[in-house]
């Protein structure tokens, strides 16, 4: 079974995922750039493409960086 696993892994390499934190900070940077240059927010796919990561990594990075509670947003808007 170990052999098969190794074979399958080599055959189907799982992309080494960058740390969630690293992706999250790159998303924020890209978002600010785009807002400044084009005056709009990037879409999810644009981010994945720009950063060269999977869509799911973008989703999980966003989840981990969503610190501001909804209440703060409403109150300070």
């Amino acid at each position, binding site marked *: 079974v170990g052999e098969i696993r190794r074979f399958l892994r080599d055959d189907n390499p799982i992309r080494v995922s960058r740390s969630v934190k690293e992706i999250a900070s790159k998303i924020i940077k890209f978002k600010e750039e785009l807002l400044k240059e084009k005056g709009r*927010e990037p879409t999810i796919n644009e981010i994945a493409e720009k950063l060269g990561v999977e869509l799911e990594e973008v*989703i*999980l990075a*966003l989840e981990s960086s*969503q610190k501001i509670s*909804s209440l703060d947003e409403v109150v300070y808007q």
Partner: protein
Amino acid sequence: MIIKNEMKLEFPSRSQNEAFARITVAAFASQLDPNLEELADIKTAVSEAVTNSIIHGYPNEIGPIKIIARLFEQGIEIIIEDNGKGIEDIEQARQPLYTSKPELERSGMGFTVMESFMDLLEVESEPGKGTKVRMIKYFKSQG
């Protein structure tokens, strides 16, 4: 409104499932390629609705919560449902700052948040039967 895709999710009203529900709906909505703000709005609205079902719908027990999400050309429809306690006076419940649980330091802003972050909010509820929240968000990033 042509439905492009649909999903149904069911889970018990445990607090850790609030984050799970939020990620799942976000992953599904991503198929329509929303922008960051639209995705954050949806996640916040889902969090508020699921938290309500957990805290208010099933205050003393664990019960089932169901989510149905549908993608159409211009956006997403999200239905979040519990078979819990229900709401006596929906109009009052939807008022900003109204909360039936001030002792829990609830802000009373959940429905207000859902209403302002989404493009449509409908609330159906029957005391003793449960509560159903229906929300729609249109994506400006789409056609």
